[in-house]
């Protein structure tokens, strides 16, 4: 399959591979996809006290497009607020990497991964609040 240079660059030099402590209160983790479908993405964000995403890490089981899509979004979310990060669309990812039509689902999965990570972070933050109020 003919892939764009940008995609190949992300595959060969993936940005931000790794894991953050999934139990930390300031870390949100999204795990999406399924092994049987051939792609699973784990995307994690770490949100600073100023509300900005200060770090993002990913691990992906999947084809080159899936790896590149997740690598790209870790770059994009850094420095954004979670509300801003939530607006990243799969079409932006697909366009940036020039994904072939059969690989569009990889960009959809990457968007889902961000949303899942943000949802996880928010759920943790909500649980935190009553505790803080009690103190």
């Amino acid at each position, binding site marked *: *399959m003919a*892939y764009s240079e940008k995609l*190949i660059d992300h*595959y060969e030099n*993936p940005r931000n*591979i790794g*894991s953050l402590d999934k139990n930390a209160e300031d870390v949100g983790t999204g*795990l*999406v*996809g*399924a*092994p*049987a*479908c*051939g*792609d*699973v*993405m*784990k995307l994690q964000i770490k949100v600073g006290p100023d509300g900005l995403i200060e770090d993002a890490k*990913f*691990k*992906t*089981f*999947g*084809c*080159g497009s*899936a*790896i590149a899509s997740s690598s790209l979004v870790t770059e994009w979310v850094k420095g954004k607020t979670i509300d801003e990060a939530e607006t990243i669309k799969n079409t932006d990812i697909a366009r940036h990497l020039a994904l072939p039509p*059969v690989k569009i*689902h990889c960009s*959809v*999965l990457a968007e*889902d991964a961000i949303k899942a990570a943000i949802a996880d972070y928010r759920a943790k933050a909500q649980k935190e609040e009553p505790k803080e109020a009690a103190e």
Partner: protein
Amino acid sequence: MTAITQIRRNDQPIYLDYQATTPMDPRVLEVMMPYFTHKFGNPGSRSHAYGWEAEEAVEKARGQIAKLIGADEKEVIYTSGATESNNLAIRGVAEFYKDRKNHIITTVTEHKCVLDTCRHLEQQGFEVTYLPVQQNGLLDLDVLRAAITDKTVLVSVMAVNNEIGVIQPLAEIGKICRERKVFFHTDAAQAAGKIPLDVEAMNIDLMSISGHKIYGPKGIGALYVRRKPRVRLVAMIYGGGQERGFRSGTLPTPLCVGLGEACEIAMKEMGTEAKHLAKLQERMLKGLRAKLTDIVVNGDLEQRIPGNLNISFAYVEGESLMMGIKNLSVSSGSACTSASLEPSYVLRALGVEEEMAHTSLRIGLGRFTTEHEVDTAVDELVRHVTKLRAMSPLWEMAQEGIDLKSIEWAAH
């Protein structure tokens, strides 16, 4: 062993896809050349020397093909390849005998050209039974016995599978078919020239052969059609009545000559070549297992041609692995390499779980594969599997002792 050790240029990737096609043996090309130029006659021309010369050449080649499979030369028909041979054998028999019998038996791991032909026949009103295979890829003979009815006209079982290289028990299948008076067709595209075949000893009634899988040219194949007891076929291509009326059309003399030579070389060198390949296969597998855990060979390792390895590298998706090993030309059972996004139906038929099917590579070794190439391939595979596992969430979870099956994955 042949003196030729390398035919690729150094700037080309290492070719490890010998089940897809083989390079032509230079010795085959050499005997073909004159038939492209000055020996250009039509083998059907009976009135002059050009025709006689061409006819002599295609008949000599027919004899070489027949000898490889223990047949008589009169029983060999030239076709354009194994796809046409399989079409002609299955449709030809089904349509000829349809007034008496209308049932065909095949297996779920056959090549698409057999399965698709059977589907077509189903639409025409024939009944087709697609037999499952065992976990090792081999047909259970009792399952075959139970499937045969008095309406069964043909059993079509491939000799060697193109994805996993397993060898079906041809002699046993042939014996069952003969006892039950059912014709036995085998697609031997991946088997001819690789393993000993004997249409008499194995009771084979029809056999498909391909030129380009045995270091011969593309665009030529053969179909063996038994004369005693006679197998009748309805022709698919009408015209001048060449090839006993089974397959009209002017014979492509250079291709016929090439197929014949390829068969003769294969017959002479089968023993030494098999030993060479078995050594390489073992070297490859040992090399990978020394440095990688969690790798699984799909299909029976014993009942298998030595030129094939089909390996699942757990937790690493096949297409991403192929993107990494740029210097190796292999193929994958992963869905992501196919337009359909479905993982290999052959692996699924063995009961290989989908997540493992996504991680499989087919590695094909052949006549021109060297030890050095195998060692380079092992190094590249180890490097990239290790790199991709380090970025695989599944590998991470497995290392943490999490049972991946305990997680509720959202299918998408």
